[in-house]
């Protein structure tokens, strides 16, 4: 599978789930267990994650399994509860919801819950601090924390989607394809005094898009946004908008792959083969059902 090969070409990657139970942790564990031996990898999570029980739906969630030599960062509380032997490398002043951030190296493999820095700046600070001891930094994204998957934090990303996001294959494909489309917005090449550009630094909402569209002055212009995490617009509104005004992003993440979890927390399972086929057709990117791999 070439996801691992792709990963080895980047310095940092975040794994982001479109919904809880879309298989983000499975995906992370898959990556961790398939990385070639000797890869210097450091892993942490955005805020609270790696709970053994899902906080929202109450379903059992797999823990993060780490092998010897891997570096991880978690909160003081989860460090004390770890199920592995590790050597403490640093206790930083970076706060997490459960105490200070602790960085350690695994000596004997085992499981740990990850709860890393909850803010973009602190995450970047931690990533800089492990840059000299890790070739690849993996970040476990969390529910509705897409902003931390922003290209401002990590170079590449893997998107986890699944039946938990939508129980209808066509809807699931359409909704996922929309997110992929946003991630893959063309990059804006800055031009000095570019007057044919409308630049929006903050959130892009339905209302904003409609206002831009209704202003005749904007005809023939282009819209430049910060990155895909700033878009909160409805799919329909967005698609109507881009037929008139093309949109570019200042920063862009490199989307490596999409993983699907065909099983929803309520037990309903979609046909994995159909789902994967339809999905890869819609997004022209590799799609993996990690449960089957």
């Amino acid at each position, binding site marked *: 599978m070439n996801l691992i090969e792709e990963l080895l070409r980047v310095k940092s990657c975040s794994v982001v789930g479109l919904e809880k139970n879309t298989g983000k942790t499975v995906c992370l564990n898959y990556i961790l267990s398939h990385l070639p031996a000797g890869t210097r990898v450091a892993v942490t999570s955005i805020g609270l994650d790696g709970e053994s029980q899902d906080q929202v739906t109450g379903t059992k969630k797999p823990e993060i399994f780490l092998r010897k030599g891997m570096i991880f960062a978690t909160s003081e509380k989860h460090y004390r509860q770890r199920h592995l032997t590790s050597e403490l490398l640093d*206790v930083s002043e970076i706060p997490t919801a459960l105490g200070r951030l602790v960085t350690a190296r695994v000596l004997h493999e085992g499981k740990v819950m990850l709860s890393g820095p909850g803010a973009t700046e602190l995450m970047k600070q931690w990533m800089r601090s492990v840059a000299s001891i890790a070739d690849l930094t993996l970040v476990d994204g969390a529910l509705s924390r897409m902003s931390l998957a922003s290209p401002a934090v990590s170079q590449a990303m893997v998107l986890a989607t699944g039946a938990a996001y939508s129980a209808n294959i066509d809807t699931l494909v359409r909704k996922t394809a929309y997110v992929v489309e946003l991630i893959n917005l063309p990059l804006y090449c800055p031009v000095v005094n570019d007057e044919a550009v409308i630049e929006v630094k903050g959130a892009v909402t339905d209302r904003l898009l409609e206002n831009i569209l209704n202003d005749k002055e904007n005809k023939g212009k282009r819209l430049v946004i910060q990155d895909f995490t700033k878009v909160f617009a409805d799919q329909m509104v967005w698609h109507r908008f881009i037929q008139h005004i093309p949109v570019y992003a200042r920063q862009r993440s490199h989307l490596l792959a999409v993983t699907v979890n065909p099983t929803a927390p309520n037990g309903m399972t979609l046909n994995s083969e159909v789902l994967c086929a339809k999905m890869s057709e819609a997004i022209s990117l590799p799609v993996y059902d990690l449960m089957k791999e």
Partner: protein
Amino acid sequence: MKLKEAISIPCGLRYMVDSLDIQSGVARRMLLEQDMAVLPQEVESGLEHLSRMSAVVLNENNALSVRTLQFRLQGLKDLRTTLDNLRSGRMLDDIELFEIKHLAMLTAEIAQLTEKMDMSAHLPDLSSVVSALDPEGLHIATFYIYDAYCPGLKQMRSELELHPTDEKLFIRIQDEENRIRVSLSAELIRYVEQLADALYQLAQMDILLAKALQMRALSLCIPTTGRTTSLVGMWNPEVEEAIRMKGGSYQRNSISFASHPTILTGSNMGGKTVVLRTVALCQLLTQFGFAVPAEQAEVAVKDAVYVSMADGQSVQEGLSSFAAEMRRIDSIIAAARANRNILALIDEPARTTNPIEGTALVSALIEVLKQTSISMLLVTHYTINAHACPCLRVRGMENGRMNYELVPALEGEVPHEALHIAEQLGVDTQWIALAHELTQR
């Protein structure tokens, strides 16, 4: 008074504290918690330490070592809670043991560095702590319950590698690790005071180094202590920066006063308030062990410093500005009457009331305080019968430029330059012309 309270006095002390390049959070917290020294020998000893650190910093040969020391001090963590846990006999966990090992190794490193810099640091020897937490002699500041602590542990861990799902074995390993943590904690409790001392000394070193570097950067001087206060060529760094940003230049001035009320007059915009702020600043800096912004300084150590200035505080407290001022001055009188050795700096008392009663209030205040041994600077625009109190005034407008120099003034001499200055400011000419006419009548 603690430094964290003193920085709210509007004199520029906060600016000086904020511009200190302190490396660790624990040192900054300790600095803010520090009490103002009120005994002359205590103040002198603080300044003596600063003077020695300043010599180290000024020595060109130490330039690299100073930067290394600063970098090392960044690693100083606030271990006070961990040390309290150790002292109370609790079992320390891996994070706490890591912190202690880190502190012990940092102390040794810094001790070596200070020796090279010819700094007389008296850091405790924590080598026994290091060897307890580094049983494999690796000399790296990481930590876990090493295999070397117990032969059985190593064996159990190898077994677990072969049977990673053996829960019972995992629990046996955890029990063994805890047994080791308990014995380590019991061993380390003997060194808890040395560890606390090392933490304190390193934090103090961080503070002192920042003060010495600030002294060099701003060309400050270390004051001497004496019976009177004499500040030669003083300036207020915060005000100076503001003036420099606007493209202007700051005129330094000098002042000296002893234990009696001194009256300060001068035209508007003559920098009288800045003089009060700078005197307060130099007094507080001295007693908190800082260098002062002056070319030469002698400072009389005081029990307390009182500042009465309009600062908008009264609005927050729901008092009228007059009521707030009366209360502030009342507390000054009470302290002076109780024979406390204080410095009071009062900016234009009773200026918000009518000039007849205002003049009476200020004259009476000076009369009352003359009976005490208070050191006081009082700024006023009123004509006061000072009865043998020293009076100073700002030299004032000369050839269209303000001269901020302070010179002795005749008793009751108050400059009449307000209209002239208002003219210079370019305000409505009809208004000023009429005012001129009225003063002539």
